[in-house]
């Protein structure tokens, strides 16, 4: 006994360490609460949030998944882009990582409790009647108190003869006998003192021929026992019969998983390999079908590293604590003669025998029970005794056998230090040829605080999400609001945006149209480029250009359009950015209609674009404030002033800068500077050709051939049909050109020149100008159509045809107006 206490003393201080989570609502069942055992190897608290990059515990991982052949039920699939992926496998691998993380942090969410487990094993040699078991089962109760779990294993509860091996009737009876015996011993009046909380409840019984294992638990713990399952494996005759093999029970106790295996391995001193093989066979074949729910729970609690099993069954290594006991049949090595073994055994000189114990040798060589632990043998060999005595079998009629430690108890703990052996000894019960062996263990039981576990899980997921979110593409735009300020008619303004890839991955960007739209942006914006790719840190520029063409100016003037748009820049696989493009249209008389222009006495820039504001300022119902637009008057007046004698008037190009400034003066009401007459002439033609509605509508274009007879009729009809304002403007312009033609000698213009409507006339000649003036025409008929009629109301094809056939007619008509005083 002193030896046993020494063992306990040796193991105990080693495990006396920190207890991060104080024991709370479940008072320790151990009477020695100060001895809060658990391993110094256990990762301590306070290092939360760290990523475990390698397996931390320095103990060998008992259920290392390295050996697991990972197979996925779903086959790999090839994506369109030729990549091969297996979503299921990938999800599994991810899960595995998550569980590993959680497991490595289990101290943060686990309350560790101390409990005591009693394990006893006895080869009863088919004996057993009325003798009391308390000297075996309750031997240390006076010292440690009643254990929380009692596990008892038997071998040879029946004779291992052929009948018993084949038919288990007798086994059932005998196992019932032994279970009852254990129950009555544990729950004897002397032990329970009538207190129901001190009684033991049977959890499970499993037998196989001569093998029996049963588990009892103290009644108060019963509600915290779950998923109790048993299994048996025969590895005897033919490799499957139950004369040899194992019976096993597994359960979840609080949140620790426990597995108890009672085994009877191959006999005979020389048959070490047979025993080793039996062990391996039993170990491998044991499997508990515990159901998905149980597996799920075990995984969640961080108890199982075989996350990936994918089946609802678990094996021996899937448990936190494994106890393996029974008649393992290992003997003392044959290098010591039988007689000497007998001598030493009887004398209690165990050291030499221990050294030559086959199990010790095989374990040291790693050939069996790898990773299992066993306490030092502090008791005499337990086999073979003369039944009914405490003497080794030495009777002359019997074969002389070397005494051996056939009966052993080993354990395996996932977490080092979660098991501390308090004692490891034998009982002196003598009905069998074996002595019973027993051991009490102080075990660390996990009690998971679910809320805390959730917290850890959340942390782990958050960390993953962070990586995922960080791997999204990210760019920065130097600006997202592009304000172009005042934008003028016929002006091009470009503003750049600098895009920088500030993320950690390659970013692909492209502009996308808004919902239900086709174009990326409004027609007055042009963007280049509309897509691109940037490696991290790379920069590029996108140029946004605003151009106010005639059509846009018209829509802006009529409030059908505002200079405001949102452009969506999308990152592939990432977020969207909105780029605002705004500008203020600086109003211009260009692109307006004469009907509207005559309404305003103020410079057009001062006329609000907003129709409501405009209505407040001007009486829009009055016919007109002026006969002709003041802008037209100002241009013509300026040309007059500068002289109609200018050579090549209307055939010389103006200075672009001056043209721009003249336009500004017209729009703002500022007075003209010393601009050249040619610039004015160009402004005049441009003004007329860009009117939003033509002075002469398409309906007035003569469709019949004009000759000397009917020209009078046509001209009369032409003038009669004109609306008042265009009429005024028309008369005004025709009069002006008549005036111009009076200076024919100097400016070298002639009526035919003015009125010749040749298609494709080159250079911005006077003829072209007049053509535009009178007809609102142009170089090509397409423009003619646009000028003559409002494209949105007219049919372009019709007007082209009309224009084409009546070109000559119009020419004659205009010539007539110019040459005669018919107006």
């Amino acid at each position: 006994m002193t030896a046993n206490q020494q063992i306990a003393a040796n193991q105990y201080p080693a495990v006396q360490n920190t207890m991060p989570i104080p024991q709370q609502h479940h008072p320790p069942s151990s009477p020695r609460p100060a001895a809060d055992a658990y391993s110094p190897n256990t990762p301590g608290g306070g290092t939360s949030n760290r990523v475990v990059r390698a397996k931390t515990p320095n103990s060998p991982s008992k259920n290392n998944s390295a050996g697991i052949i990972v197979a996925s039920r779903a086959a790999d699939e090839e994506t369109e882009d030729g990549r091969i992926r297996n979503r299921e496998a990938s999800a599994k691998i991810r899960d595995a990582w998550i569980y590993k993380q959680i497991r490595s942090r289990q101290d943060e969410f686990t309350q560790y409790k101390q409990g005591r487990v009693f394990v006893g094993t006895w080869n009863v040699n088919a004996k057993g009647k009325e003798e009391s078991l308390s000297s075996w089962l309750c031997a240390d109760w006076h010292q440690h108190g009643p254990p929380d779990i009692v596990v008892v294993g038997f071998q040879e509860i029946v004779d291992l003869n052929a009948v018993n091996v084949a038919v288990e009737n007798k086994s059932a009876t005998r196992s019932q006998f032994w279970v009852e015996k254990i129950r009555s011993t544990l729950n004897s009046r002397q032990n329970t003192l009538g207190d129901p909380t001190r009684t033991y409840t049977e959890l499970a019984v499993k037998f196989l021929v001569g093998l029996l294992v049963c588990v009892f638990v103290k009644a108060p713990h019963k509600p915290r026992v779950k998923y109790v399952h048993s299994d048996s494996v025969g590895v005897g005759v033919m490799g499957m019969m139950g004369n040899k093999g194992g019976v096993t029970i597994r359960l979840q106790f609080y949140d620790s998983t426990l597995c108890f295996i009672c085994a009877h391995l191959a006999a005979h001193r020389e048959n070490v390999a047979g025993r080793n093989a039996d062990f391996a066979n039993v170990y491998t074949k044991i499997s508990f079908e515990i159901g998905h729910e149980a597996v799920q729970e075990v995984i969640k609690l961080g108890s199982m590293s075989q996350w990936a099993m994918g089946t609802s069954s678990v094996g021996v290594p899937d448990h936190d604590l494994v106890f393996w006991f029974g008649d393992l049949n290992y003997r003392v090595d044959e290098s010591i003669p039988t007689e000497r073994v007998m001598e030493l055994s009887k004398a209690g000189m165990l050291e030499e025998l221990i050294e030559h114990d086959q199990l010790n040798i095989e374990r040291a060589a790693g050939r069996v029970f790898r990773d299992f632990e066993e306490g030092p043998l502090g008791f005499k060999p337990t086999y073979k005794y003369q039944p009914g005595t405490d003497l080794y079998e030495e009777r002359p009629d019997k074969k002389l056998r070397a005494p051996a430690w056939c009966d052993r108890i080993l354990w395996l703990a996932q977490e080092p230090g979660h098991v501390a052996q308090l004692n490891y000894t034998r009982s002196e019960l003598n009905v069998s040829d074996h002595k019973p062996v027993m051991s009490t263990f102080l075990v660390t039981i996990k009690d998971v605080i679910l809320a805390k576990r959730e917290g850890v899980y959340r942390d782990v997921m958050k960390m993953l999400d962070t990586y995922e979110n960080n791997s999204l593409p990210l760019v920065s735009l130097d600006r997202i609001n592009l304000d172009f300020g005042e934008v003028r008619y016929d002006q091009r303004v470009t503003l750049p945006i600098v895009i920088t890839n500030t993320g950690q991955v390659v970013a692909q960007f492209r502009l996308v149209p808004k919902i239900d739209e086709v174009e990326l942006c409004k027609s007055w914006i042009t963007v280049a480029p509309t897509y691109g790719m940037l490696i991290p840190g790379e920069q590029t520029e996108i140029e946004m250009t605003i151009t106010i063409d005639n059509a846009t100016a018209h829509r802006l003037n009529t409030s059908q359009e505002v200079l405001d748009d949102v452009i969506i820049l999308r990152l592939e696989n990432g977020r969207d950015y909105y780029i605002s493009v705004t500008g203020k249209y600086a109003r211009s008389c260009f692109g307006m209609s004469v009907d509207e222009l005559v309404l305003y006495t103020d410079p057009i820039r001062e006329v609000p674009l907003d129709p409501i504001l405009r209505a407040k300022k001007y009486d829009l119902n009055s016919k007109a404030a002026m006969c002709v637009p003041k802008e037209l008057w100002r241009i013509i007046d300026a040309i007059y002033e500068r002289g109609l004698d200018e050579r090549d008037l209307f055939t010389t190009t103006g200075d672009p800068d001056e043209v721009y400034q003249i336009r500004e003066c017209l729009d703002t009401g500022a007075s003209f500077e010393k601009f050249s007459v040619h610039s004015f002439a160009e402004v005049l033609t441009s003004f007329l050709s860009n009117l939003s509605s033509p002075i002469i509508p398409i309906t007035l274009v003569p469709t019949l051939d004009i000759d000397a007879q009917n020209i009078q009729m046509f001209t009369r009809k032409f003038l009669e049909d004109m609306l008042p304002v265009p009429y005024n403007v028309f008369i005004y312009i025709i009069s002006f050109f008549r005036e111009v033609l009076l200076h024919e000698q100097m400016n070298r213009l002639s009526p035919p020149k003015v009125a010749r409507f040749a298609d494709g006339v080159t250079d911005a000649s006077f003829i072209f100008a007049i053509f535009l003036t009178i007809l609102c025409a142009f170089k090509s008929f397409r423009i003619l159509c646009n000028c003559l009629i409002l494209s949105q109301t007219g049919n372009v094809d019709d007007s082209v045809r009309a224009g084409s056939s009546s070109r000559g007619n119009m020419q004659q008509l205009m010539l007539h107006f110019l040459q005669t005083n018919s107006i």
Partner: protein
Amino acid sequence: MVIEEKTEEKNNNNDRCDDHDIKKVSPLLFLPLTNIVVIQPSKLPLRILLLFTMSNRVCHFKLVLLGDTAVGKSCLVVRFVRDEFFEFQEPTIGAAFLTQTVALDDATVKFEIWDTAGQERYRSLAPMYYRGAAAAIIVYDITNPDSFAGAKSWVKELQRRGDTNVVIALAGNKADLESRRKVDFQEANAYAEENGILHMETSAKNSNNVRALFVEIAKSLPKATQQPEREAFPIVMQKEETRNCC
């Protein structure tokens, strides 16, 4: 003293195990015992472990945040995803995309979150994001009655134009500003009930109810029907028969 008799459950258990034994007697196991190579237990188990979707299923769901400007949509997301809070969160100009996982008892829900721009100017772009969304959080500011009116109109719009099965949650944010409350909890709650949508008051600032909101949504989502992953490539339309142009 026998305290507890065997429960039925246990008996069944044993029965089942016995059945198990019988099944094990298969001819494959009739192997000769001798000359068995010693197998190292640590190399075990050798069985092929099948993988299938047994552990936490991860369901992907698109979630969109909608609501008027400055009600705290981005703050809610930032609180939820990064557990941070910025008093002066920049207005979202665009649509931010983030993912975040919520673990439930029976499943893991991964939200693909689109945080939209609340400014009126961008309102017409919202359908781009709520189309196809499995869930929507419509946020209002409890100190701003207009934002609650705005939230109602968002609910209407979503009911009219969103997916039919979209899970809508109404979130009254800035619940920490109780003294400046202008939107009555009961009123909002009654409105939510009337419309059969979730309702919760949240505070991105003190993180109250933020996580709970997403968890509630996750619980409400049908886990059985996993959303298809977003198409990485646009589906190629079938070529229409070329029409004669004349």
